[in-house]
């Protein structure tokens, strides 16, 4: 016999109370729910806090440059990691990248504010990290003079007349990024087109994760690969003189950028409604024509966003730059010359710099610029291109 359930221990639903309605009123305060919501919202807010903190604390360290006083240069030496500087002998396999820098670099005395002679080239081919380890500035430069050198063509932070010219670093970064994207862009996009449009389903399910595995390779491993294998291979292939240079660095960076551009492009292509493809094929177009004349144009904003993010990835890449680009702060249009990127500069020099001095602040300045750049790139990809994409599919 079916009978109605009587659950007497039911805490909230009435069965014996004289006024059945009273328990439905009286909004109940549930502590664990309230607490959970508070905690969850607070923790989530933390991500905003972190971004704000990054802004604040990275910029904070650049401030001394912009104040009118001399830097504190308190003499508090940046505690360097317990790496004992070893004497440098020329590497047998990369002769020009690493100097015999046991002896201090010879510098010509330069009057302030005057462009150095072109003979400064001799200094710039040496790895900056090694040149100044045994060298401390005699005279702490005033930050105001440092600011004035920011736009110069010399990056010589450690010298009697320190110059913090960012131009060679920017130029190096741009060069490497350009080379990287020229290779990574087409390859990644073509691969994405194949995956999204031409590949049979079974193969597609294999390719996409396989290429995403490349994203899982640590950049230090890619850098190692470039340093050991790629550099020699490319040098034998193309016969240029400097083994580690912008070109090698660029190709290696491309390896890091490809998964980023590939995944986002493939997502963009797959997001184009299947009905477009079906309509096109139904009209008698080939898959190729459909891919290039229907799907690709529809996915353009997403592909641009993918490229932007790929650029951002390369722009800030440090380890590969440190290991494969030669690390010489030169401005040269020859892709086979050594370059120094912005992030590599930070990576190479920060550990050896004196806390609080101008060099330290300039390195943080570089970091701030990098941060602003990638932040803007991301904002551009997020807001501009996503909106374009949405409007496109709404028919505006």
């Amino acid at each position: 016999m079916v009978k109605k359930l009587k659950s007497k221990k039911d805490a909230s639903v009435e069965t014996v109370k004289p006024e059945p309605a009273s328990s439905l009123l009286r909004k109940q305060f549930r502590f664990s729910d309230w607490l959970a919501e508070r905690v969850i919202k607070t923790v989530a807010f933390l991500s905003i806090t972190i971004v704000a903190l990054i802004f604040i604390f990275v910029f904070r360290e650049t401030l001394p440059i912009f104040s009118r006083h001399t830097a504190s240069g308190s003499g508090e030496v940046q505690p360097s990691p317990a790496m004992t500087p070893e004497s440098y002998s020329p590497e047998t396999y990369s002769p020009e990248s690493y100097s015999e820098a046991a002896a201090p670099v010879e510098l010509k005395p330069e009057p302030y504010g005057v462009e150095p002679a072109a003979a400064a080239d001799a200094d710039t081919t040496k790895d900056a990290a090694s040149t100044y380890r045994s060298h401390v500035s005699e005279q702490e430069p005033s930050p105001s003079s440092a600011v004035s050198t920011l736009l110069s063509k010399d990056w010589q932070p450690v010298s009697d007349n320190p110059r913090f010219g960012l131009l060679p670093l920017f130029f190096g970064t741009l060069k490497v990024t350009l080379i990287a994207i020229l290779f990574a862009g087409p390859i990644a996009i073509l691969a994405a087109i194949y995956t999204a449009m031409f590949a049979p389903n079974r193969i597609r399910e294999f390719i996409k994760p396989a290429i995403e595995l490349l994203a899982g390779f640590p950049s230090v491993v890619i850098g190692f690969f470039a340093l050991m294998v790629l550099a020699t291979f490319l040098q034998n292939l193309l016969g240029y003189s400097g083994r580690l240079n912008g070109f090698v660095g660029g190709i290696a960076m491309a390896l890091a950028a490809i998964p980023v551009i590939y995944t986002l492009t493939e997502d963009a292509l797959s997001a184009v409604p299947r009905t477009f493809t079906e309509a096109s094929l139904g009209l008698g177009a080939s898959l190729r024509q459909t891919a290039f004349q229907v799907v690709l144009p529809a996915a353009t904003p997403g592909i641009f966003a993918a490229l932007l993010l790929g650029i951002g990835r390369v722009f800030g890449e440090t380890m590969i730059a440190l290991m494969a680009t030669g690390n010489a702060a030169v401005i040269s249009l020859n892709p086979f010359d050594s370059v120094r990127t912005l992030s590599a500069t930070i990576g190479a020099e920060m550990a050896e710099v004196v806390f609080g001095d101008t060099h330290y602040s300039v390195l943080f300045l570089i970091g701030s610029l990098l941060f602003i750049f990638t932040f803007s790139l991301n904002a551009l990809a997020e807001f501009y291109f996503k909106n374009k994409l949405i409007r496109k599919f709404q028919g505006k």
Partner: protein
Amino acid sequence: MKRTTKDIVVKSLTGMSVLLILFVIVAILTVTFIGGWSHLSWEFLTEFPKEGMTKGGIFPAVVGTAVMTLIMTLVAVPFGAITAIYLAEYASERSILAKTIRFAVKTLAVVPSIIFGLFGLGFFIKFVGFNADKLLFAGELHWGQPNILWASLTMALLTLPIVIVSVEESIRTVPREVREASLALGATKWQTIRQVVLPGSITGILTGTILAISRGAGEVAPILFTGAAYYLAELPTSLSDQFMSLGYHIYIMSTQSTNVDETLPIQFATTLVLLLLTFSLSLVAVVLRYRIRKKVK
């Protein structure tokens, strides 16, 4: 449908791009394997380096990486999972707060890893550590310098977005109807999350954790000046010690080692260890993610 030459050419070209990428992946794996496999051994993993890094093993680097990654995971996974719960369950898509948080997470995901290192230096070491020293040690330098704690926290920030994205994706695979069923039975929101949604997203939390570990073990830039060291005679014994790390070891050894002939096999072997570690973790994560996505179909 007639296939023109153009069709074939294009299909081949795009297909070859795929093959090229796959080839590179295989090449890196193979080269590293060839260079390092012979030197790999149990002793290699469990011994300290000897004779100025030219012999011996990489035990301290393995331990350093492991400990750093562990601390990083203990911090990043809870914070990341909770943020993901917020984004998936509590955030109204139209609220400005939700949009800002999402943007902040995306920002963290694209910030170059070296910037995290700068943040670690400028915030953890020079602000938190420095002030802690003022309070606890009367200004004597103790926490205000690079160590394994700051490096781990720095790395936790870097991997936070990875965890968030994975966990959120997994939470969203729990169908709406199941949530509604729970609410219709008179469960509260938190009860529903705790007893229905979260059990259904364990796989995603796992995937996120694995991806974070893989990334954390491999990144070097953030720890360049927040705690990693090339040669330490002993293993770190407290959070305020520095540590050795696989990635950092590879970097220094390959760019600044003096005795190339002797250290080359060690370089390759260390790289192989790191690569195998991160690769297998990525592989597991890929398989898990595949299973999650299959659930939805």
